[in-house]
């Protein structure tokens, strides 16, 4: 399967990538990692790109790491639409102090607009 994972720069993004790498190794998927432009994130786009490359190298998984500029949701869906992807993977939301699952506007946009299957990683 040809998988595209979209990442911001949060700890949740790291978790999403780790789980996606594990899955890629287990089933032999083709993986592309897209680092999105989210200036408010904990890690900058460059830092996230470097960290993603390190995690892939450490796991010995061969994957393209690209960066996408502009609005994160629409740039990711647009990229997925242009390529031959079977599945789009994104983070599955954050937890509020109370423990409520919160899905942000990017998640909502991707779920409502992506032409592919979308996987939310928890």
């Amino acid at each position, binding site marked *: 399967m040809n998988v595209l994972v979209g990442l911001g720069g949060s700890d949740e993004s790291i978790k999403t990538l780790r789980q996606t790498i594990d899955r890629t190794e287990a089933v032999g998927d083709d993986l592309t990692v897209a680092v999105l432009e989210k200036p408010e994130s904990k890690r900058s786009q460059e830092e996230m790109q470097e960290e993603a490359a390190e995690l892939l190298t450490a796991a010995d998984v061969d994957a393209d790491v690209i960066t996408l500029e502009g609005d994160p949701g629409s740039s990711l869906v647009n990229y997925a639409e242009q390529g031959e992807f079977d599945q789009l993977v994104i983070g599955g939301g954050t937890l*509020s*102090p*109370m*423990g*409520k*699952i*919160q*899905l*942000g*506007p990017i*998640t*909502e946009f991707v779920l409502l607009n992506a032409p592919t299957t979308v996987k939310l990683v928890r």
Partner: protein
Amino acid sequence: MSGTRPYPDEPSGPFPSPTTTLEDRDGRQIDIVALDSFADESLEDVVEMYVQFDPEDRAQGIPPTGEQRIRDWLEAIAENTVNVVARHDGDVVGHAMLVPDTGDPAAIDDPGDIEWELAIFVLQAYQRAGIGTELLEGLLGHAIDVGIERVWLTVERWNNPAIALYERVGFEATGTESFEQEMAIFLGE
């Protein structure tokens, strides 16, 4: 004050401080009571309520299902929560709480400096009887008593009855909107 959410400029209230008593629309006598501590017996009473709770009315993953997962959830957030319950014949039939939006226990020393997340649940057999409004107002009254100024919540965007209830007591929608609507209330300084 920390945090980035927008809050209304004008304070809401006043709200009644617990303990209060009401007769609900079905003629049941309901006591709205603030819990001094949230451990042992008081926590078990609330666990018992959530065990009875119909999972169809869960929101955003809470309450969890199953007694052990319910207890784990409440124990994990119990320490610094502010809790008000609705009791009928001694049983907890509704629970409203505020959870501090900080990972720093020292910040709790001044409740007015931090933001508090609100949640409220009423058992299905006690819904649409006026209890939710009294419970919510009782929690906000108690919050003012303990010095809390800023309270926020998220509610599923299609849950119009809940949004109407929150608006009635003074919550306003904040800018953030996706599947959940975020709302905030200012209780005064």
